[in-house]
């Protein structure tokens, strides 16, 4: 447990001390005038168990049996909400201890909220806890058994020794070749070579080193959760960050007003959702038939679009104007 920042106000601290020394048979607390004080650590790291103490008092008298919850601000896909992460009930001294496990890398504004039994509104206690940035980036389970000397280094040693022996055998083959060159005179019919042995030995040695490098690099090459800076293969999105969505601007009227009917048609082909069934470039897909080679005259195309044959919805002139339909037709006929 790390040190506590005491966020008690003086008055409440004194009353809490008094409350601790006086045994009172607390009657069910009346919510009116209840005040909340909180003791919490300054900063925590991910994976740590964090203890939060809340002391409730009413006019200096500790409140027993009150229910409180700890909440923090969570945000997902642009939606924010308060999430309960712990709850507790106060004891005779008016103190409730709540423990939660730090998993997110940002807590935002935390609150201790009174939940009852009284019904009158109570001002929640607002505070913040910083999350240390040098901890592991993501939450990890600490399960598993660590056995001394049974680890990655041992694996590297075993693999290296296998490759050492393979390389050694290859080197013996090189020496076979060298022995042949030094003893062979005119009796050998043609000039031999030992490069194949050398090649094998080289390949074995290089592959051996490569294997070991892959092993040693393994923790940094992918998903290195201990060091966020090494984790660069996939962009990281943090809970709480907001990302602006950049679309294609299909709703922008001017996108289909370039003057080139084919370019305009391509935009409109997407805008009206034709691509969803007929494929990204009108080639046809699981639902929609191919359009590119089948598009035909504008007359029949227009008729089909307005009526919607074989389960396709019809698009009237309010939805797709005649002008826009001509552009789509132009795109499908000449666009590719």
């Amino acid at each position: 447990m790390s040190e506590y920042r005491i966020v008690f106000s003086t008055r409440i601290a004194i009353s809490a001390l008094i409350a601790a020394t006086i045994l009172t048979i607390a009657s069910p607390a009346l919510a009116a005038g209840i005040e909340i004080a909180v003791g919490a650590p300054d900063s925590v790291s991910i994976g740590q168990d964090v203890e939060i103490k809340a002391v409730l008092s009413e006019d200096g008298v500790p409140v027993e049996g009150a229910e409180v919850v700890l909440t923090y601000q969570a945000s997902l896909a642009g939606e924010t909400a308060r999430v309960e992460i712990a709850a507790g009930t106060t004891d005779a001294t008016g103190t409730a201890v709540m423990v939660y496990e730090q998993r997110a890398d940002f807590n935002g504004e935390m609150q201790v909220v009174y939940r009852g039994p009284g019904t009158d509104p109570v001002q929640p206690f607002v505070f913040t806890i910083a999350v240390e940035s040098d901890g592991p980036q993501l939450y990890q389970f600490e399960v598993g058994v660590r056995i001394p000397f049974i680890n990655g280094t041992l694996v590297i040693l075993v693999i290296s020794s296998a490759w050492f022996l393979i390389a050694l055998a290859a080197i013996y083959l090189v020496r076979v070749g060298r022995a042949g060159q030094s003893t062979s005179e005119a009796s050998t019919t043609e000039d031999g070579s030992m490069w194949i042995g050398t090649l094998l030995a080289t390949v074995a040695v290089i592959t051996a080193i490569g294997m070991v490098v892959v092993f040693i690099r393994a923790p940094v090459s992918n998903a290195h959760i201990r060091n966020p800076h090494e984790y660069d293969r996939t962009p990281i999105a943090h809970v709480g960050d907001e990302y602006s969505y950049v679309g294609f601007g299909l709703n922008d009227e001017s996108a289909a007003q370039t003057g080139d009917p084919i370019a305009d048609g391509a935009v409109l082909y997407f805008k009206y959702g034709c691509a969803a069934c007929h494929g990204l470039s009108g080639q046809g897909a699981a639902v929609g038939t191919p359009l590119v080679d089948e598009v035909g005259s504008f007359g029949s195309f227009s008729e089909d679009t307005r009526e919607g044959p074989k389960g396709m919805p019809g698009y009237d002139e309010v939805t797709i104007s005649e002008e826009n339909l001509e552009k789509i037709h132009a795109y499908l006929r000449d666009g590719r």
Partner: protein
Amino acid sequence: MDTLTNWHERLIGKTTRATLVTTYKYWLWLGFLIVITGNGALQYWKQWQDGLYVTDMRDRISWGLYITAFVFFIGISHAGTLISAILRATKASWRAPVTRIAEFITAVALLVGASFVVIDMGRPERILNVYRFGRWQSPIMWDVMAITTYMTASIIYLSAPMIPDLALYRDRLSDKVGMLRRFIYRTLALDWNGSPKQHKLLGKAITIMMLIIIPIAVSVHTVVSWIFSMTLRAGWNTSIFGVLFVAGAIFSGVATLIIIMAILRRIYHWEEYLTEKHFLYLGYLLAAFGAFMVYVNLNEYLTQGFNLEEAGVFAFRQLFLEDFAVMFWFYIIGGLLGPVVLMLIPKTRTIAGVVAAAILVDIAMFLERYFIVVTGLRVPLMPYEPASYGPTFVEWSVFAAGLAVFGLLITVAIKIFPMLAVWEMTEEHEAAISGTHSEEASMAGTEVAGSGTSMERFSDAGGSAEEGGP
């Protein structure tokens, strides 16, 4: 009574004949294999363009015939290791004629097997990411490591004992073959001239490889099994999977060796060298492994079945009674008990009987790989309807191409490399006929192939062996 020299010359003649004499049947066979391979390549091109959609693998059953083929071929590749390394290490004297073929099967099956992993990938161009972003915490990575190591080791283990025979080819065939093969013999023979120093060095290389390749081979198929058993799926999540896979690998490897030996023996008339004894010994090995496999299967299914977990009920029902029952019982009765029975009955204890057993084993082991892969994935992890899987034409074509490439590589290798280990066979033959008679003979016998000088010494030794021979 043959003189040793005559025996030796006849052996060289029979071995080189396979390389030199090519009949129209060879070309027909080659053409057949190329057609099958071509069709597979064409279908793979389709898969390359359209993605894995052309297979029947989907979200629930995401491994199928390709991974089956991968496991099957990697299993076959254990033929070379067992026969060659274990028999060499235990100094089994009858091994010599079968080792070279076994080692070729290993190298070729590994190449084919490993490529099925890439074929199974939806984005094969990302294969290098395995090395760039590989994490050794992943069983897939262990597999990559083990197979890379095994492949390198197998190629060295194949080429090292072949050096003296390549030297023989270099000396004997230089005027009978084209430039390419002359170049291959010259470079791969490593200036071999049979000097004692070279023998010593080669011996060391072979000994190291022989010792290191046994644990590597065992690790390879254990790691292949771990890809399955490290999951929490019913039917896969069992500690005996490593043993089951390694035993099954050696089992199917020996069976494949028997089949290929029988084919080559028939085509190239190697009856004198690949005798009934060799087939029977390998047949006994097959029967012993069949019995062992029965034991391992009993062990696996009884422990899982006795403390039956919920998902196990579905896994067992589909395997023993429903969708996969025919495959499973053929595997147990035909593939595992069949070879044992065939070897027990004196009437079928023949070459034909052994080959029949081997064919049964290979089919059964293929089916076993198939139902292990598919049934494991078919067990629902959530209460949904079990998925179905049946390989599509594309998958069958690519699998057939895998078999064809396997045959093709061996067929081509016959025309380049000596498929019988001439120098080892000569050593063995020497030791057999001289018995306790002459140490001198066996000493000289180690230098059979190579330069003219060693050949002369060999003839002298042959002369002395002749006097005391049986």
